[in-house]
């Protein structure tokens, strides 16, 4: 009897570990994605499908872990490992950054502001450096110190979705550190 209690107690602990690891590794739910998935697979919206996936399957999985936890132990370890790994890399792969090889030419803030001033004959843009993007430029300037060098850059970027892009703009360089950057143009590659 004691053996059974200990066995199921360990099963409960492993079940809890898998549950919390699963919750931690889940991406935030997106209504938009749900709508897309439901549009392609209308059966997803039925009550039967929802009961099966949201209630029956989790219960059956829980029972399976409780009863056969020695077999599920590797799953628990894999889940925990996955969570710690994802926490150390979340967002890094998706973030655009400028590398030293992307640098083109050193310049100055004064030169940039003179070159990038927008003058529209119809007055449909602020007569300021970078026009409608001026607020972003002002924000970029806040990061600059007198020690920073300013360079133009051009870099290839592969977004998660859509075609490759060439991104151009200005980047601050301090010693070996390249960044922050200010993107002024995004050119999509490929035929229109």
């Amino acid at each position, binding site marked *: 009897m004691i053996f059974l209690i200990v066995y199921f107690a360990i099963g409960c602990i492993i079940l809890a570990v898998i549950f919390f690891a699963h919750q931690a590794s889940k991406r935030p739910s997106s*209504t*938009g994605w749900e*709508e*897309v998935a439901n*549009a392609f697979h209308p059966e997803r919206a039925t009550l039967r499908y929802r009961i099966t996936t949201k209630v029956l399957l989790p219960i059956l999985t829980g029972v399976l872990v409780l009863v056969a936890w020695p077999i599920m132990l590797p799953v628990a370890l894999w889940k925990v490992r996955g969570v710690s790994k994802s926490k150390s890399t979340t967002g890094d792969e998706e973030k655009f950054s400028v590398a030293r090889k992307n640098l083109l030419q050193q310049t100055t803030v004064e030169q940039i502001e003179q070159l990038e001033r*927008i003058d*529209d*004959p*119809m007055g*449909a*843009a*602020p007569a300021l450096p970078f*026009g*409608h*993007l001026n*607020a*972003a430029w002002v924000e970029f300037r806040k990061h600059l110190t007198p020690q920073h060098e300013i360079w133009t850059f051009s870099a290839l970027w592969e977004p998660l979705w859509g075609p490759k892009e060439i991104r151009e703009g200005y980047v601050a360089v301090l010693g070996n550190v390249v960044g922050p950057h200010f*993107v*002024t*143009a*995004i*050119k*999509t590659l490929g035929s*229109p």
Partner: protein
Amino acid sequence: MTAQVPEKLLYEGEELSMCAEPLRCYFALTGLQPDFRSNCTALWRGYVGTWEISEGRLYLVKLQGTTNQDEEVSIATLFPDFPDRVFAHWFSGTIRVPQGKLLEYVHMGYGSKYERDLLFDIERGVVKKIELRQNGTSDIADDEEGYRIGAATVFSQQK
């Protein structure tokens, strides 16, 4: 994915269908994008912009959209000081304006092929080149001309 509703382009007194989204670039550059509501598979971006080429420059002259908070989005929402006309100096790329009869329907994005493409090469909002590309001739004599979307799914409003 579904064929997408195009942007509109006013050019030489005509309203044309424009298969490019210069605002996407603006949103990417500024990081500022309203939470547009999309309730149709033919309009994932959730808005339609009307553009004009005037004096060799590209302008945004109208914007229609709604946010998920039920707020109407217009040019004034994005550019409060320029509610009527915005010079799209942030945009560089090619704008494709399909013309003529349909040659090949592709139910994805702006993939459909038409008899002609009017191509505007834009550099920082300024038109550098205009080119007419011939893609072929339709076999269907009485087919109607212009951009079209085969089908779309409209979602119910969720609050």
